[in-house]
């Protein structure tokens, strides 16, 4: 099981990286993994209060379960236009 995890904007700056990959070895014992569990695996701090997440390019809930090949993204509130 491999999951790509991406980080954007101020969050990537604060963490010091913008992408990580969780491989089979890392997550095998936790399957099925949720998005909030992914955060705990990749970040060395509690999630920011206003943290948003996406799963495969759609906004997602932190309780959603993941499958092999998924792309998870974490980011702060957005600001387009």
């Amino acid at each position, binding site marked *: 099981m491999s999951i790509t995890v991406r980080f954007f*904007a*101020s969050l990537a700056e604060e963490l010091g990286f913008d992408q990580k990959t969780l491989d089979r070895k890392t997550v095998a014992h936790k399957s099925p993994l949720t998005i909030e569990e992914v955060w705990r695996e990749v970040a060395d701090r509690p999630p920011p209060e206003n943290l948003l997440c*996406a799963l495969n390019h759609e906004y997602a809930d932190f309780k959603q379960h993941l499958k092999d090949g998924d792309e998870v993204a974490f*980011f*702060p*509130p*957005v600001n*387009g*236009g």
Partner: protein
Amino acid sequence: MLIEIRNQAFDPWQEISRYQENCGLVPGSYGACATFVGTLRDFNQGDKVKRMRLTHYPGMTEHQLSKIAEQALSQYQLLDLIIVHRVGDINPNEPIVLVAVWSAHRAAAFDGCRQIMEYLKSSATFWKKETLESEQRWVSSGVNQ
């Protein structure tokens, strides 16, 4: 329909004119074109803004723009639309976003244009970082701006 995320400056009025001439809209079929052009100010929250860097989530943002465009076309029975959104380094007075929609009547054009803009402000995965005189800072959510 034209939906683009660009890293080069653009002239929104040329975009509208060029698109309207070439997009296949039947002359006489539309009675309204509503447009919104967002431009970078040289001030924000009491500070002088020298420039701004706009970033997005490649893949997700394009997907979102296509979805909101299709939704607005259907909901307001729009005839056609443009969404052009800048990314990269932007200078004051340069356009950030263009939304233009064509419809038979004005109410649908105003409402459809506004719905797309509100979505861009509240949900589309863009982020802004300002360069001020002596520091850089991330711009907080623009839902109410």
